[in-house]
């Protein structure tokens, strides 16, 4: 059995505790990287990370792209949607096809 976690600034994520997810409020870059690594090595299958925080640790996020678990998924925080989540999907298309033929105009 695996658990789910949410990583991000406190204001964006405190509500997820109500759903039973593990809430990890971090804002600092090195702290976030350490926490993400800790969660990924623990029994967490899904880790949601706010886009704002993910922008600070792109290397750490990419590290889990090609592993089966955990799934690191970007979500918008309270400070608005940066479009990083959508960009990530486009990146997958680009990686597979060579260029973004599906969502290039969105």
């Amino acid at each position, binding site marked *: 059995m695996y658990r789910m976690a949410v990583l991000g600034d406190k204001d964006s994520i405190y509500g997820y505790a109500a759903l039973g997810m593990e809430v990890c409020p971090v804002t600092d870059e090195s702290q976030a990287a350490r926490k993400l690594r800790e969660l990924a090595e623990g029994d967490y299958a899904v880790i949601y990370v706010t886009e704002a925080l993910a922008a600070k640790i792109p290397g750490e996020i990419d590290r889990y792209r090609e592993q089966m678990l955990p*799934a690191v998924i970007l979500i918008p925080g*309270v400070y608005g949607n940066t479009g990083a989540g959508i960009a990530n999907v486009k990146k997958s298309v680009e990686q597979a096809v060579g260029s973004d033929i599906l969502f290039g105009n969105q």
Partner: protein
Amino acid sequence: MPTVNPTRMELTRLKGKLATASRGHKLLKDKRDELMRQFLDLVRVNMSLRQRVEEGLKTANRNFALARAAMSDETVEVAFMASKQDIEVEAEPKNVMSVNIPQFTVKTRTSDESDIYSYGFAFTSSDLDDAVSSLAAVQDDMVKLAEVEKACQLMAAEIEKTRRRVNALEHIMIPQYQKDIKYISMKLDENERSTQIRLMKVKDMMLEEAHHYKEKEEARAVG
């Protein structure tokens, strides 16, 4: 310049390798095409799910910001301190064209929907209830998104790898083998011809030795 030994054994070995490479190339190409087909379907689902989840979260975030504004930090903290609900996921690996993708099944501790409210209603505003329920509404989609997005990422990586292999086989390995095979068979033919010529020459010399054709010819010419 080819660095292969022009021997019959090397030729047999290379022919075997070429056959394997061609078969591998065909199989990998099929794998790539099928992966690509499934990936394109999946990534469209991924995109629409993501848009739906982001829309839902936007609403939830707005509600949370609103709720937070009306309450003190301590109240909010206390409200979420002891969560009644607990969520766990089962990650079953599913093999799609040799790519292992996880299938998530969610298990919550209690099935009662109202258990997401982990606080008494006395000290919190109703905005918080709205916020929590709007977040709970997108929960299923979020898990689905995690599953689909992970599958897309894994498949994209596998497609890239497979494509590289197909290209390497098609443009480098197979032409190289063909070139080497051609070189060896030319060289072997050449050797065979030169052996033949040598034999003919030796035969001529031996006959000359035995019958002295030349001397007889000269004698006839004089006489």
